[in-house]
């Protein structure tokens, strides 16, 4: 009106130009995330999943009135099939909120280790898929693959550690706490379990090895994916005797990782927030990757108190921060983790 009163024409052409610019910017951002799937996957991907996850976590950390705890947790257990008899603390009123109940611990002896097996399950759940990694490709579900290097990261896409979580103080603390006390036991552990800890870096990290994570002659790479349903025990344990040398935290989306979604969304495990723990076992390279989801965006690693996942912070797809546990022990250059030891877990939100 002001422009018209002054005799100037309204520049209407700027309106569609502005809209087109906005659409272009959104498309660029979406392309960078590389969400590939049917239309309903794109609809889900447009939701603020990380914010929803954090809100869900905050809501479930509110303290419940004691009178509501028993019926509330019984209802949750009935809906999701939790086994309440194996809980370490069976008194439901002792769990102040659903978050605590979700992260419940089990009675000693509730999960016996199979001592005859080299590789045991790290978690309660359902085996989604397992097999051999061929040509650096891992099968998410039958016929849907993703790149191993994209899942675990490589030397080329891991920047120098940045931010609060990777300030190195933790490494220093670990070095101080475990430097001298465990030398004999670590040496013994590596000797008994056939781990060659003298190889201080992971396969493929040496210069000139573009295709990282290649097996040594006579070996091949295997994978196994275990899905934890909402009612399952949500802590994970060490599946083998190994030495964890590196942790890589990949910020990302928090899509559901249900079998339904795994069948729909290509690169689901590469898109989602995850923590890749890399190290060595008796046959060479070993890695364990807890992948977050909308309801469980918080991944906890017991020996890494500085790790913070699903934090309110802008990120670029594929962004990764790395911590090396070199200083945890000068001998093994990593954290010694025996088979069956609790390593961490998933928390709500």
């Amino acid at each position, binding site marked *: 009106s002001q422009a018209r009163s002054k005799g100037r024409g309204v520049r209407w052409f700027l309106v569609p130009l502005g809209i087109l610019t906005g659409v272009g910017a959104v498309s660029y951002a979406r392309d960078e995330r590389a969400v590939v799937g049917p239309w309903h996957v794109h609809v889900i991907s447009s939701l603020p999943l990380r914010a929803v996850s954090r809100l869900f976590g905050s809501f479930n950390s509110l303290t419940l009135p004691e009178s509501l705890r028993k019926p509330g947790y019984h209802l949750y257990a009935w809906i999701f099939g939790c086994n309440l008899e194996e809980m370490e603390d069976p008194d439901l009123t002792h769990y102040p909120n659903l978050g605590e109940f979700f992260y419940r611990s089990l009675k000693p002896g509730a999960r016996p*280790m199979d001592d005859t097996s080299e*590789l045991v399950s790290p978690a309660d759940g359902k*085996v*989604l898929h397992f097999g051999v990694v061929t040509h650096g490709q*891992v099968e998410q579900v039958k016929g849907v693959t993703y790149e191993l290097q994209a899942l675990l990261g490589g030397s080329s896409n891991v920047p120098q550690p940045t931010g609060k979580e990777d300030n190195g103080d933790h490494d220093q603390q670990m070095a101080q706490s475990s430097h001298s006390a465990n030398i004999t036991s670590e040496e013994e552990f590596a000797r008994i379990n056939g781990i060659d800890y003298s190889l201080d870096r992971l*396969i493929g990290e040496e210069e000139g090895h573009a295709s990282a994570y290649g097996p040594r002659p006579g070996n091949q790479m295997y994978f196994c994916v275990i899905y*934890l349903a909402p009612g399952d025990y949500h802590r994970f*344990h060490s599946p083998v005797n190994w030495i964890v040398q590196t942790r890589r935290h990949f910020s990302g989306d928090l899509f559901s990782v249900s079998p339904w979604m795994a069948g729909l969304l290509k690169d689901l495990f590469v898109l989602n927030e995850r923590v890749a723990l890399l190290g060595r076992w008796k046959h*060479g390279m070993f890695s364990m990757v807890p992948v977050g*989801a909308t309801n469980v965006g918080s991944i906890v690693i017991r020996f890494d108190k500085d790790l913070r996942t699903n934090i309110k912070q802008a990120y670029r797809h594929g962004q990764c921060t790395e911590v090396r546990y070199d200083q945890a022990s000068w001998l093994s250059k990593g954290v010694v983790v025996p088979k069956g030891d609790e390593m961490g877990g998933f928390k709500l939100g």
Partner: protein
Amino acid sequence: STVVLIFEAPEQGFTFTLEPGQKVQVGQSLGH
């Protein structure tokens, strides 16, 4: 939530002791 294991093992002699879709618990054998 999901846990993905990626590891190196002998080409000859390593076998999974699993069925697709099988329910597992912590400590249960996955392979020999």
